[in-house]
């Protein structure tokens, strides 16, 4: 499971960075989205990768990380997803505005002089 998760994070982050460095605004925003998926998975994995472990204590049992999943990264990742989602949506609007105002989808608002 660790291998799959780390490969997924690596592939997502790698493609995200590559797209982020491209010159078209749409590619940049897709790159940012991929990068934020990678980061979210990474945050999630810092609590340790387990399957079938609950994060909420059952009544009458003492809590221990041996039996339960760490709830904090899950809370963090929720917050990060919400914030990342909102800011990406905002960037999307700015992208459209830039496309409309400058008439170009280059990140600098104009094509590079050849």
């Amino acid at each position, binding site marked *: 499971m660790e291998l799959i998760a780390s490969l997924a994070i690596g592939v997502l982050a790698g493609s995200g960075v590559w797209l982020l460095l491209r010159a078209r605004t749409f590619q940049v925003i897709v790159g940012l989205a991929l*990068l934020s998926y990678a980061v979210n998975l990474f945050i999630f994995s810092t609590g340790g990768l387990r399957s079938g472990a609950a994060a909420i204590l059952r009544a009458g049992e003492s809590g221990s990380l041996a039996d339960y999943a760490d709830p904090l990264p899950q809370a963090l990742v929720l917050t990060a997803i919400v914030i990342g989602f909102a*800011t990406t949506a905002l960037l999307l609007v700015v992208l459209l*505005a*830039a496309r409309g105002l400058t008439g170009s989808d280059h990140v600098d608002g104009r094509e590079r002089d050849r």
Partner: protein
Amino acid sequence: MTAWTDHLLMAPIVVPMLAGAAMILIGDRRRNLIGLIGLVSTVTLVLLAGLLLAMADEPVVRIYRLGNWPTLFGIVLVLDRLSALMLALAAVLGFAAFIFSLGRWHRAGVFFHPLFQFQLMGLNGAFLTGDLFNLFVFFEVMLAASYGMALHGSGVARVRAGLHYITVNLVASLLFLIGVSVVYGIAGTLNMADLAFRMRDIVAEDRGLLETGLAIMGIAFLVKAAMWPLGFWLPPTYAAATTPAAAILSILSKVGIYAVLRVWLLLFGGETGPSAGFGSHWLVVGGLLTIAFGSIAVLATQNLPRLAGASVLISSGTLLAAIGAGQVAVTGGALFYMASSVLAIGAFFLLIELVERGREVGADVLAVTRAAFGSGEDEEELEEQEIVGVVIPGTLAILGFAFMACALLLAGLPPLSGFLAKFAILSAVLGPTGAGLRITAWALMAALILSGFATVIAMVRSGIDVFWTNPARRPPRIGVVEILPIAFLLLLCIALTVGAGPAMDYMQAAARDLHAPTAYLRGVFAGRPDAVP
């Protein structure tokens, strides 16, 4: 143990939040009501900041536990001297920018006032929070509002600069998150005080990873602080933003500095085990390079908003290099410098718009080109008219004085507080107690003096250009609400100069607390949850 005054710690976050929410519900049409709410909120923030500043100036660090959870489980807000100082700066600058915006800028687009309030809320939250994840959350609140503020008024230049600004900051936020999660994965805590405790006991094989995580987080802070080479987004964004937005954005770069001061000094300053002093060379070198880049930018720029943006770079670089020097007295001087430069740059951003008003578009560029290549046209014209002396109109004279004060403050010339700040940094760096690398000390001194020199040249050049050779045909029409905030900020700088003794004592005490954070740690951990009454 909770006195009612402890609840005041929450107020700088709650007041602008409620004000902003109320403004959205009321709707953007009823300008007067919204303006009134904004006025009440910003004035309240200034008063609160004064109160908190007085409360913080004592050995005990106050904390506020949200929901009365025990410190390590719940969220804590911490008020020490540094956070109170930052709150005060944000409140004062926010008040000035708000009043200025009432002149005309708040009508340039929708939802200016709510965004402004949320911006203040994010700033205050970032200064008060005691754990890393909430620092991230408040950074995002502040940034989300700042995206709206930077784009306020729309237009091609703003959208183009805003696109870069948002993208760069989103990437920085992702780096912040990576750093936070690495820290949590290794240390198992996000509370800054708890983290400082645990730093000593991290086993050797994990230490490298933890330092990497903190360094990644540090990059996010330094992007905000616009350290070279992470700060290329800053001058275009600030130059393109509307005036009050630029003034309030100018303190955003200081949030990065604040985060570096808080986190770096808590975790790596002083007696914190094997990691002490981690990355200080990077701060010094990066700061010096930022100063160099800022000085070149100041000299190279042909318009005033970019000049102001470049002075933000110089100020960030100076602060980073001074913090990296890692001595108490230098940090104290740096805090004084921060107060002075935040006020001065804020005033300068507001002033620029008034000065530029009424001048033809692109006048700066033309003037510099004329100076460089010489076009005989103007001189002939002057001779024809045989003007012996031009009477400078009253409005321009006031603006000129304000401009001069800004120039003195930014360049660090006597008699104003900019000089005192630089002097405090330099005397501490070169003083007998200033141990450490001598080469750092001399490099810092050279950088400070040369950057001041570059600022003087640039300011004098544009000052002559704006007020003497090329004045507006008609004096610009300026409302009282627009000149008052500038006067307010400059008067505060003068107050800082006159009251330099007590102010410097406060800064030095703040610096001592930062370098030996026992009071901070004790304050945060003193808190057991109060018994429910």
